[in-house]
């Protein structure tokens, strides 16, 4: 059974990799349709595999499948779409699809924090910068990926090693669980108030890391401000210089 | 030329502590608007209510006045057409069939859509033949309809003469004053 399953699993991975490769922006004819079809087949196959293995668990329900499929599909769109704005927006969709997954894992606070921090702040900054920096049409660098084949092969080999192992060895789960340290139980997950647990663990056990994170944010803020203050001379345009203090348009004598 | 001593430099006011907090200022402003909320409104409900107009100098639709004998008072002197800043008046002059004047307008068109209702034509008219009436609800279904010709302008006079009598019924008589010169260019060169 194991060989049968693993061949299916690896077929799924190969199809996914092929789909990503075909969806990459390239010169010449677009292969998006073929890529989309293969990707859909790969996702369906993955769902089939998961559904067979995880019936009756929280990861076996429809919300998980819907969210996971949306997250994967939009993540692929992020790296394959030719317009950076669409990439950023598909990433918002990824984040919103991951949110229910975290809620399924009883991480409500983290889920909403993900939406607020990622979708509400970080991605807005991305969209902001993309809009600032993409004024004049679509540059060539978005039309053609760099070594997509190598990248896809490398990425999916790594992933296949990790995930393929986990998916094909359900029996060894017990070993992992057994090897895991017993729950320290100062904050068991059974409690309904996830926020309070996270807060108490973060502010007792990891309070130093918490403070360091604050310092890191402060440093980053100072760095960003310092960077934005710096005037970078353009290497292309030479700006006409005017004597300081002179304002307005110069009019020659007539 | 603006003299230096006429220039007033307004300094940005230096705000005191409370003003820099903004909130007392905002509250004061909101008090003003709150007071106004309960004031009687000054709106005139137009189709039902109408404002009383100052008939003497309200600048509405034009009219061409008639003299005492019912003839058009205009002497086709082109003063209004010259004075018009919007170039909305077009006059075609013709030898007058009557003795007391030299010319009369064969055709007198005002494009009411082009007119800016400035009243310069009325100011310019030497015989007070063209006047602006208090009539302001001027509508039409086409642009052509809004170009008023002589008949229409005279009709406006007939409709409004009771409301606003002709300012100066006297016709400046230039008949027999010797001003008339044969061969004077009539000015309808366009």
């Amino acid at each position, binding site marked *: 059974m194991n060989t049968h399953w693993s061949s299916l699993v690896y077929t799924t991975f190969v199809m996914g990799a092929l789909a*990503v490769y075909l969806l990459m922006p390239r010169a010449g004819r677009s292969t998006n349709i073929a890529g989309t079809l293969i990707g859909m087949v790969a996702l369906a196959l993955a769902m089939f595999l*998961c559904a067979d*293995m*995880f019936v009756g*668990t*929280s*990861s076996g329900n429809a919300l998980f499948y819907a969210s*996971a499929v949306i*997250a*994967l599909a939009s*993540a692929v769109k*992020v*790296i*394959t779409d030719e317009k*950076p704005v669409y990439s*950023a927006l598909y*990433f918002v969709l*990824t984040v919103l699809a*991951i949110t229910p*997954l*975290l809620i399924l*894992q009883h*991480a409500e606070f983290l889920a909403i924090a993900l939406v607020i921090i990622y979708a509400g702040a*970080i991605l807005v*900054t991305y969209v902001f910068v993309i809009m*600032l*920096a*993409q004024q004049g049409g679509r*540059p060539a*660098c*978005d039309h*053609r*990926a*760099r070594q*997509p084949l190598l*990248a896809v092969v490398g990425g*999916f080999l*790594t*992933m296949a090693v*990790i*995930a393929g192992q*986990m998916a094909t060895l*359900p029996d060894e789960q017990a070993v*992992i*669980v057994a090897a895991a340290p017993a729950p320290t*139980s100062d*904050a068991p*997950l059974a409690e309904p108030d996830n926020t309070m647990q*996270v807060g108490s*663990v*973060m502010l007792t*056990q990891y309070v130093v890391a918490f403070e360091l*994170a604050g310092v*890191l944010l402060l440093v*980053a803020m100072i760095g*960003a401000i310092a*960077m934005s203050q*710096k005037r970078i001379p*353009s290497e*292309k345009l030479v700006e006409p210089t005017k004597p300081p203090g002179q304002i307005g348009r110069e009019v020659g004598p007539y | 030329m603006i003299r230096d001593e006429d220039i007033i430099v307004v300094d940005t006011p230096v705000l005191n502590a409370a003003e820099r907090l903004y909130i007392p200022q905002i509250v004061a402003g909101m008090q003003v608007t709150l007071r106004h909320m309960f004031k009687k409104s000054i709106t005139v409900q137009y189709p039902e209510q109408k404002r009383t107009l100052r008939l003497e100098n309200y600048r509405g639709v034009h009219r061409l006045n008639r003299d005492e004998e019912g003839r058009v008072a205009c002497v086709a002197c082109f003063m209004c057409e010259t004075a018009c800043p919007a170039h909305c008046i077009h006059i075609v002059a013709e030898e007058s069939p009557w003795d007391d004047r030299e010319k009369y307008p064969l055709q007198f068109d005002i494009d009411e859509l082009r007119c800016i209702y400035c009243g310069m034509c009325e100011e310019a008219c030497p015989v007070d033949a063209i006047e602006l009436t208090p009539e302001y609800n001027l509508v039409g279904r086409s642009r052509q309809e809004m170009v008023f010709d002589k008949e229409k302008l005279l009709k406006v006079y007939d409709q409004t003469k009771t409301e606003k009598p002709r300012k100066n019924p006297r016709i400046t008589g230039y008949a027999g004053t010797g001003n008339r010169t044969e061969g004077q260019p009539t000015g309808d060169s366009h």
Partner: protein
Amino acid sequence: MNDIVPYVILGALLFAIGMVGFLSRRNLIVIFLSTEIMLQGVVINLVALGRLHDHVNGQVFALFLFVIAAVEAGLALGLVVLLYRRRDTLDAERWTTMWG
């Protein structure tokens, strides 16, 4: 405990997708977006593995990850804007002056 395996696989997949994007795209901003996808995969894994151990440590780590992501977004995007101002392009292949 079968429960968390799909989450871990999903995290790995997202990580791989992000890695592919990081390696193959040329637009600087999309490269950074790809790193964010990788971080998302890590977040899912952290939460799922934390659940495996019945502890919220994973979630706390994920929150620290958000801090890192926010810092990265702020600084990296600031740098990208500066680079864009200098050369009027976001193409990573145009910045080759450091090649030996």
